[in-house]
């Protein structure tokens, strides 16, 4: 009986003594339960052409040159689209950890845009688990084309439209991230009576990392039924991100010509069925100010 008790006690205490001689066990693994924000859900602030939940960090300036060539279906005469293009130059600045603001100029409709992105929730692990990152993205834009309706007073606000997107993203693993981007677009003025002033769409996008510095990205915006959905097409873009240090290069194919949100969500003309696909790229460069 004594022996048994001795054994039992021995079993209890021996591990304690063995462990206490190994300092590693002194490091109570408090580190494992620490709250940790998930980083780098996407490489840059766009999935392909639409906004991702990523923003430039506070104090960083992101310069983006976006370029969409013409339709490949235009054929050899236009060098498969390479001789025509629309361009957007953009600057985005990280004001705080959560808030960034940007401006952009597009050749498409001579459009000026301004945007803000605000991170409402951040995906985290550890003690406080937050499954998703949620950001609000708001863009206001106006066309600077000559006024073409002499019979009508040229109010400035008639040129303005708005795009509001709620970006909900989750980084599922090191390599795989998904984002849902429901959007609401408002036109202050539309051309015809039947045109919608308010357009709703649902966007989805994702990325799959194929190496440490490259990923495959896909993005789709579905227009909810209405006049806009009758007149225009849903936007589909697919491409790769190549990160080289200070730059992220995004090379992609898309059926959208405009490079600002109202444009590609609600005014995509390219018909995928007819092969209206164009090649495009974004060059993203971060400057730490």
């Amino acid at each position: 009986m004594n022996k048994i008790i001795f054994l039992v006690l021995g079993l209890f205490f021996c591990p304690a003594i063995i462990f206490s001689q190994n300092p590693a066990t002194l490091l109570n693994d408090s580190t494992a339960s620490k709250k940790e924000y998930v980083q780098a859900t996407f490489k840059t602030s766009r999935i392909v052409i639409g906004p991702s939940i990523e923003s430039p960090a506070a104090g960083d300036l992101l310069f983006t040159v976006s370029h969409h060539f013409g339709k490949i279906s235009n054929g050899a005469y236009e060098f498969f689209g390479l001789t025509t293009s629309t361009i957007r130059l953009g600057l985005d600045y990280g004001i705080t950890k959560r808030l960034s603001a940007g401006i952009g100029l597009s050749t498409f409709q001579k459009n000026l845009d301004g945007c803000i992105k605000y991170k409402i929730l951040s995906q985290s692990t550890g003690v406080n688990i937050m499954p998703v990152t949620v950001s609000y993205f708001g863009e206001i834009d106006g066309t600077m084309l000559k006024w073409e309706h002499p019979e009508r007073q040229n109010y400035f606000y008639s040129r303005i439209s708005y795009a509001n997107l709620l970006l909900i993203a989750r980084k599922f693993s090191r390599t795989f991230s998904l984002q849902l981007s429901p959007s609401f677009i408002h036109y202050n003025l539309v051309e015809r009576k039947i045109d919608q002033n308010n357009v709703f769409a649902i966007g989805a996008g994702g990325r799959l990392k194929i190496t440490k510095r490259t990923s495959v990205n896909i993005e789709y915006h579905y227009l909810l039924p209405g006049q806009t959905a009758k007149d225009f097409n849903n936007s589909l873009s697919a491409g790769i991100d190549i990160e080289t240090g200070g730059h992220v290069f995004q090379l992609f194919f898309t059926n959208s010509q405009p490079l600002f949100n109202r444009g590609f969500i609600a005014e995509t003309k390219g018909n995928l069925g007819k092969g209206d696909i164009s090649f495009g790229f974004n060059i993203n460069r971060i400057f730490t100010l």
Partner: protein
Amino acid sequence: MKKIIIVFFIMAFLSLAVNAQKYITKTGKISFFSSAPLENIEAVNDQVNAALDFSTGDFVFKVLMKSFEFPKSLMQEHFNENYVESDKYPDASFTGKITNIKDINVANNNTVIVQAQGDLTIHGVTKKINTSGTIGIKNGVLTGYSKFTILLKDYNISIPKTVVNNISKTIEITVNIILNKLNN
């Protein structure tokens, strides 16, 4: 029955005696420095876990890679995403022994040069490291300091050609810790 009680007490005392020699911190500081033609990169981690068993000289460091703070957030992202791959290898560790621990007398306020050897694990790769440092004692508090360099190549961390002028092949690591006696 007596035997058991005796054994019980011996064990209890033994573990107490061993514990009384433990020094520990959770706010140690480790920084690293990369000096390259185009830019210098320095990152600091001040949440280092470390423990030293004074009776044997055994020590352990545990460092969460994501706790390294960089002057530029893009550096930090690239460090975690592309170089040390923090999601795959969340921490680095250094376990080993101070070979001349007997030279230190905790009762006196002094500073002793110590030799440390052990296994340094970064990016999932473990290498034997020999380095020297100092341990200073003041009123029962230990201050540890060491500086050594490692080769990134040794730890399977590769530098792409486009940034060879931004990141040094050798990284200088500086350790600064203040260890307090562990109270049970």
